[in-house]
């Protein structure tokens, strides 16, 4: 958990100062992330194939959606797609590593429930990942793209369930994180609805 929170804070701070550079040199970052991911796939245990790095990117992206307006949010929105792509690259490494373990140790059909939920969330990340690239996004209808990216909430739900069902010592932290996100998301939705349809003040004529 310490790693997760520290990494999330590092990405947010780094992004705040260098979001223009991140946006400008995103292709190089994706290639670099791919290389690092491929290397860590061959390693025994590290923070990438345990899923911490990927999740830290997603936490930054997730909470951008529920934060209030400000310079930090502005910088995060500017690189939201890049952060999601980097997160998916690193989370794929985690997924592939554990699918590899399942095949190696022959428990692919008898794995715990959280394993399959993790696999489903990885599958959900694929269309979100591919359509996050600007080349593909441009080819899509804007409304369809928005509809498709509503899937990211299902993805967050599955990631949350995956983490909670592992039932390790960090379970309560994950419940706290995803619970807070859920509450703040409802708050944000209600806020947006209220802004769109403000309650008209009753004018007393008496």
């Amino acid at each position, binding site marked *: 958990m*310490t*790693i997760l929170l*520290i990494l999330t804070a590092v990405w947010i701070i780094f992004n705040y100062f260098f979001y223009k550079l991140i946006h400008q040199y995103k292709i190089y970052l994706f290639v670099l992330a791919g290389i690092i991911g491929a290397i860590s796939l061959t390693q025994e*245990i590290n*923070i990438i194939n345990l899923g911490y790095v990927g999740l830290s990117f997603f936490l930054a992206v997730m909470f951008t959606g529920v934060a*209030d307006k400000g310079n*930090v949010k502005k910088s995060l929105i500017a690189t939201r797609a890049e952060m999601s792509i980097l997160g998916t690259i690193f989370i794929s490494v985690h997924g592939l590593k554990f699918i590899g373990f*399942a095949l190696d140790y022959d428990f692919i059909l008898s794995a715990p429930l959280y394993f399959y939920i993790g696999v489903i969330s990885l599958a959900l990340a694929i269309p979100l990942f591919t359509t996050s690239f600007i080349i593909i996004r441009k080819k899509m209808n804007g409304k369809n793209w928005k509809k498709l990216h509503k899937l990211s909430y299902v993805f967050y739900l599955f990631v949350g369930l995956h983490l909670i069902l592992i039932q390790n010592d960090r379970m309560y*932290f994950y419940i706290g994180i995803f619970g807070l996100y859920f509450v703040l998301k409802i*708050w944000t939705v209600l806020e947006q609805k209220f802004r769109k349809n403000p309650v008209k003040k009753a004018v007393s004529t008496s």
Partner: protein
Amino acid sequence: MKKEAELMKNFILLIAFIIALGLSLVYEPFTDTIDVVAGATNTTYNTNIDVITGATALNGDQYDDDDDSEFDDD
């Protein structure tokens, strides 16, 4: 006052982050965090793979070696 209300969620997020970080530093030894960044395994961070593969249990192994083995030589 209105501006403060508009930043309420950011304030909650900041407080939640500080509390979560504080608690995680209390419950997870920082040395274990440094270890796992360096690639060393430890009980705080290396639970998943071990549990799946049946190598160790979450909070220690019930088959841990103990000192009073019945096959000890006298």
